Every structure is written in structure tokens, then in C-alpha cells.
């Protein structure tokens, strides 16, 4: 049985830098931090899996530990895999509901007006709190009556006319909750003479499934998505996603966490800002009119991890008249499904407090961020509307 265990965590030199950057360890003393939960714990778990520590459940998988690690240890991945391997996930009805975003979307979207009204009612929220453990203080995401796909189908003919084409991985949120960002991507790319096409089928990228322990389901989705990508890429240049967590998962987590080989397509999966910034740099930049706004930019954890902040900043800075203030690179605390859970509510809120305070003090017109989960958290906790960078780009088109 030698050499079957991945011991790359042994590159850890115990410097504790990961813990200095862990938002959960700072907010919640029950979490011993990524060093102990990750590489330290892994040594013990190899010896005896019973040493699996309950405390792992507090990790939000924000990946800040990996960004900070000077020794290149995949701390967050070690923790997620340990949780999966040793049955550390609670997979009740709440976890199922929160993580199966595409299923929930396809059920809720057709009845959107009803669902949206009902989920805003206090008694309903109380009921969800008591029966499922979804915190009643949390604003629940709204659904859209017209999915992005059905909107897109009506004008797919227009898209066919472009010589250059890309494939768009819209993700669950854009399809079922709010199609705005998808529509803005289409108009920005069209202004750059690039057409958009969708995969025949796509499934949730898997990020909420991984976070809640549904690894088999996530792997199935990953395999389907990779097949679809391969097919779609015969006719288009690349696959683009507008959500940082989706992009990170499709590109980096499929091989690292789910063991799904994406090497054939990996180099052709792009975060929207990265693709557009590269086009701009090559001279394909549409005419832009000034957008006279003062905005604060919040960088999402998974975008930092995937190395995408540079491209979003490049795009924001290319919009004439726009004043961009970069917020401190701190976690907003929601972490997808994490902050919806009753037991995590106070940790989640206390992690985000720094960002909320900074936003309120700046007195900006809008907050800008690429991540839908961050958007929900900031809008719930500040008086500000949060925009996607593509929305500002779309506004500046002449």
C-alpha cells in the first residue's frame, strides 16, 4: 500500500501563514484554522481516520489559505477531500436544497412570482429556519420568470451571423435567478463583433455540490459539462463564464478536487473579464462613452484564487469617467451556501463586517463585484446596489 497516498501536504513547513489569512479562524474560535484542519490533520488522518475532526465543517472553502501559502500546499483542497473521504458532510434536505441550484432553479423559475412573494414572507422564513435550519435573517435569492436560456433562444439567430463565436457557460444564477449579467455579456461581446452560443446542455458547475459533500453528483455534472465543452469548442473559440466560482471550478477544481480530466479544454476556459481584457489589448475595443460614477470594487475570494482580479480591474479602468476604489481584499462572509445555514449566520456576518463598514464609509454610488454570492451578501448588509463589471461595460457602450 505504499506510495498510494498523496503526501504533497508535507510541503507544509508549519509557518501558519494560512491561518493568518483565514476569515473563519478569525471570526469563529471553534475552527482551529487551515493549518490544523489541513496538513496537520492529514498526517493524523493517514494514521487513523478516526482522528477526523468535527471542526472541518467550519471551512468555507474560500481558498485564501492557498493564496497565502508560500509553500504551494493546496490547503483548502486537503480539507474538502478529508471531509468527503471521512463522511464529514451532513447531507440533509437543507444541504440538498441549497446545493442543487439547477434543480431548484428549474422548479422555482416557472412559478417565480409566487416563489418570490412566498420566500419574502416572515412566517415562511421562520418555518424554513425552524424546519430546515436556513437562517430567517437571510434574504433569499429571487427567481426570474423568464430564464436566460429562453431569452437567448429568441435571438440566437442574430448570434449566428457573427463570424467569431464563443460558448457561454451561463451557470445557474444567470439562468434561473437573474439573467442581467448574461444579457450584458451578449451586448458587450456583440459590440466587439463576437457572437455568443450556448452549450446544448449544461449542468451546475458543481461548486455548491462540492461545498455540501455531493461529490458524486458534482463529478457527474463535471463529466457532462466537459463533454458539452468539447462538442461546443469545435465551432467556437473558447468557453466563457461570468461567475468567478464557476470559472475556478470548471478550470481548476475539476482535476484537483473531482478528479475529472479537463486537460483537453482547460486552456480554452476563460473568465469573462480575462477574455475581454485580452481582446481590448489586441485592439478589439468598442467605442465607449463616459460612465460618471464612483464605485467600490470588491474582489471575490475565488477570483483572487483563480488570478482574475487583474483583468476585471483592467476593464473597469478602461471605462472613461469611472472612478474605481478597490476595497480591502477581505471575504464578504457568505461563501455561497455557507452563510444561509443557521449555525453559520453569525460567523458569516462577522467575517463580512469589515467590508460592510468600509463600503458605508466610502460613500460610493455603487459597489461592483463579479460574484453573485458576494452581491447578495453586500446588498443585504449595506444600503448599496451591487453591479457586475459587465453591467458597467454595457452601460458605457455607445
Amino acid at each position, binding site marked *: 500500500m505504499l506510495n498510494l497516498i498523496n503526501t504533497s501536504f508535507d510541503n507544509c513547513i508549519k*509557518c501558519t*501563514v494560512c491561518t493568518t489569512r483565514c476569515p473563519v*479562524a478569525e471570526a469563529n474560535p471553534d475552527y482551529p484554522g487551515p493549518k490544523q484542519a489541513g496538513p496537520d490533520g492529514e498526517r493524523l488522518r493517514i494514521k487513523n481516520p478516526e482522528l477526523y475532526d468535527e471542526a472541518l465543517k467550519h471551512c468555507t472553502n474560500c481558498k485564501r489559505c*492557498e493564496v*497565502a501559502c508560500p509553500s504551494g500546499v493546496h490547503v483548502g483542497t486537503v480539507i474538502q477531500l478529508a471531509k468527503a473521504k471521512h463522511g464529514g458532510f451532513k447531507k440533509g434536505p437543507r444541504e440538498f436544497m441549497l446545493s442543487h441550484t439547477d434543480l431548484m432553479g428549474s422548479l422555482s423559475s416557472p412559478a417565480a412570482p409566487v416563489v418570490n412573494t412566498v420566500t419574502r414572507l416572515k412566517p415562511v422564513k421562520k418555518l424554513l429556519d425552524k424546519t430546515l435550519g436556513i437562517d430567517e435573517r437571510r434574504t433569499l435569492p429571487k427567481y426570474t420568470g423568464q430564464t436566460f436560456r429562453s431569452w437567448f433562444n429568441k435571438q440566437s439567430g442574430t448570434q449566428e451571423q457573427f463570424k467569431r463565436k464563443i460558448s457561454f457557460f451561463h451557470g445557474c444564477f444567470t439562468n434561473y435567478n437573474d439573467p442581467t449579467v448574461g444579457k450584458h455579456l451578449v451586448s458587450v461581446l456583440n459590440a466587439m463583433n463576437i457572437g455568443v452560443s450556448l452549450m446544448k446542455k449544461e449542468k451546475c458547475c458543481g461548486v455548491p455540490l462540492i461545498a455540501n459533500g455531493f461529490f458524486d453528483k458534482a463529478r457527474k455534472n463535471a463529466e457532462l459539462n466537459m463533454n458539452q465543452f468539447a462538442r461546443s469548442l469545435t465551432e467556437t473559440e473558447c468557453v466563457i463564464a461570468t461567475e468567478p466560482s464557476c470559472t475556478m471550478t470548471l478550470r481548476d477544481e475539476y482535476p484537483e478536487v473531482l478528479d475529472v480530466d479537463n486537460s483537453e479544454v482547460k486552456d480554452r476556459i476563460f473568465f469573462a473579464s*480575462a477574455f475581454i481584457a485580452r481582446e481590448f489589448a489586441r485592439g478589439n475595443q468598442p467605442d465607449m462613452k463616459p460612465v460618471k460614477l464612483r464605485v467600490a470594487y470588491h474582489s471575490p475570494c475565488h477570483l483572487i484564487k483563480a488570478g482574475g482580479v487583474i483583468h476585471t480591474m483592467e476593464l473597469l479602468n478602461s471605462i472613461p469617467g469611472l472612478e474605481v476604489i478597490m476595497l*480591502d481584499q477581505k471575504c464578504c462572509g457568505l461563501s455561497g451556501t455557507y452563510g444561509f445555514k443557521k449555525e453559520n449566520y453569525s460567523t458569516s456576518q462577522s467575517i463580512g463586517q469589515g467590508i460592510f463598514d468600509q463600503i458605508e464609509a466610502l460613500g460610493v454610488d455603487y459597489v461592483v463585484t463579479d460574484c453573485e454570492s458576494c452581491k447578495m451578501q453586500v446588498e443585504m448588509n449595506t444600503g448599496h446596489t451591487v453591479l457586475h463589471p459587465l453591467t458597467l461595460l454595457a452601460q458605457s457602450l455607445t
Partner: protein
Amino acid sequence: MKYNSIIIGGGLAGLTSAIRCAEAGLKTALISAGDSALTFASGSIDVLGIRQNNSLVQYPFEEISHLPSGHPYQKLGAGQVKQSLHFFTGQMAKAGIQMSSHGQQNHSRLTALGAIRPTWLSQPGTKALSIAAPAAGLRRVAIINIAGFRDFQPALVAAGMKKHPEFAGVEFTVADINAETVNINARNAYELRSLEMARLLKRDLFSQPKGLTIFASAIQKAAGNADLVVLPSVLAVENGNELISQLEAHTGLHICELATLPPSLPGMRMANALRQRYRELGGLLLEGDEVLSGYFDNNKLNSIKTRLNPSMPLEADHFILATGSFFSRGLDSNQSSLTDKTFNLDVVEAGQREQWSNERFLNGHQHGFSYFGIETNERFNPYQNGKAITNLYCAGGVLGGFNPVAEASAGGVAISTGWFAANQIIAQRSGSSGTAK
């Protein structure tokens, strides 16, 4: 995408040069592959403290002219080294930390092993001792720990200090403060690192209305009427210096904090302050990415390829390489050779493997490998196959020709060479009219 300057490495040298560039209005990006060695640093800045013959340097700037010709300080000269440190002190002050020095003179700082090290610039929480007579005015020293915290050993500090003849007549008290006394409730006190202790104290003690008074009286009880109270640096990350001065006001004692085993809170404070300053100036910080290779043409570095965006090279007019030495993974070695990991630049002649280090690691003699690093010209441009790369500068630990540990010069070299590299870039840009878009 094109920048005016791209800095590779987020440590002291990288951050200093990045701040200088951003302040001059250059479109600047800094790439850092994980946190830097600042997280392990003392929080003081050593400029030049020890001569080849192991004697202490009192006046570091005067000493520069006695250094060998290949030394980074010799290329800069004392005037520029001084200016760079002045710049650094100003930037730290703008980020909220007032560093202090004794004019042109070095002072002594204590370490967690009880050693006395020469340094030039310290945070207020580090009590500066005299360089010539470190024990002057001290009759009683109290070394105090929070019971159960394992990354600080008061008895070891006392034993180390007693070895100095200067401290022969000093009386040492070693004491603990119990967790119950200060109302902190740790799950497992022995698992806590300095940072976790600070978080615990913040939550359980200092956020309470009487927290400061409770802690002050615990110190008073443990320290008695000592002339100097030594504590591990576990009290606070942000505003740690202010907290110590408040405790001094409450107790009437002189309190000195010592950086513990990593993470070092004074080092983290410095890193946070510099990162914050860089962001305020509009600089872009790319953390967790790594430079894989560079595209060189006509003795210039045109662009770099990074691990996270391999198909999108980053272009710049000028680059600074501040990737640190072996520990920070800027330099790499195998059995027979030495390499710069990032660009494969020319490194100082390392000689025979047997001569790289002394047989005994800690016998007080210098090791050859400490001097290893990238070879540069007078302007700190490195060479590739013997040809100088004119728009690339090297700064800090990655440079060859100095011994950061034996001569106590790591911080000063990082700051001065980082500052100098940025100045070269700024000067060249004001000479030409090109701007990056």
C-alpha cells in the same frame, strides 16, 4: 495588458519598490506567490550591524564604505541607503506605524532566545536598548508569558540574556499570567500560535470595558517593580504598538514585546501596513500567482507568463525581481549548481559544493551560501548569458554579494535596493514621454 512596472515578489523589497512606483503615478502590478518572509520577521529593520570579525557596528551608514566592492550598499553609497530608509519610515508612518531610530546610531533589540541584536529601526513596542551598553539602567528584568503558550519560553530568554557579561548584575524574574486571571477561555492553550492568542485576547479580554485594566494589573502583579518587562508579541496584530503604550501608561512599567516563533505579529503588522499603503496608492496586488517564465528580446524583458494566466502574458516597460533567497524560493540549488528560479539569470560563481557551507552550521562562522545570489551591474541590472538586461532590476534577498544574517543587513538591503530600482524606473520614465495604456 501593459504596465509601467511589474514587481515580482511581495516581501520587503517588492513592497517598498511597488509603493515608490505607485506613488510616482506609475501603473504598477505586484505579483506574489504566497505570503512573504515578513510574516516571520522581527518587525525591526537591520541596516548593518555586525562586522566580518563579529564586532558590533555602532554607526551603520559610516560603516558602508568599509564593505567589499560587490556589496549592494557599495553600489548605492551611504547617502542613497539613508534616503531610502527615510522614504520607508515615511511610508510606514502614513500607514499608521511610527518607526523609531537613534539618529545615525544602531540600537540593540532583544530576541526570543535572549540574544541581543544590533538594529537601526524599530516599532515602538520593541524597546530599544543602548548599542554600547544594552543593560544600562536595568537592575531588574521581568520576563512574562501567558501560561500555556508554547511559542515563547521565558526561562530561555533569561538564560540567553544572562550569557551577556553586560547583564551579569541584572536580576531576572520569570513569571506566567494565568488564563483565568485575565478571563480568557482557550480550547487548548498549548495549540495556540501568537496570532490565535491575539484573536482570543481580543475576543475575551480587550473587547471588554475593563479588559485593559485587568491585563495591566496582571502584568503589575507578575512583574513587580522591574525596570523592563518582556512579553511575547501575542497581544494584538493591528494597533499592537498602541496597545503596549496604553499598558505602559496603566502600569507605569517599560514593556517590550518580542516576536515569537512564526507567525510574528510585528512582522505581520509591517506587511499589512505596507500592503495597505500600496493599495491606497492605487497599486494592483496579485497574490497567489507565480511567474513561470519571461520573454526576453534584445537584452530586454518584454513580458512574463504566470501560472494562473499562462495564455495571457503580462507586459511592462520595466520589471523588478524581488523574489528573495533560498527560503523564499527565489533561488534554487542542487548538488552542483545554483539557479535563479524565475528567469535563469546569471548567479555569482558558487565554486565547489564543499565550500558552500561550513561543516558546523552554528559555530559562528559565515557560510558561503549566504553570499550567493544574482550578479548585477552598478544599476542592479542582472545578466543573462553575460549580457545585462536593461529594463530588469534585482532587489533584496535574491541579490548576491552580501550576507543578510551574519552582517545583520537583510532589511536595509531589501529597502534600499527596492527603492533604488524604483527610482531608476521613475527617472527613465520622466526622461522619455511614453506612457502605458
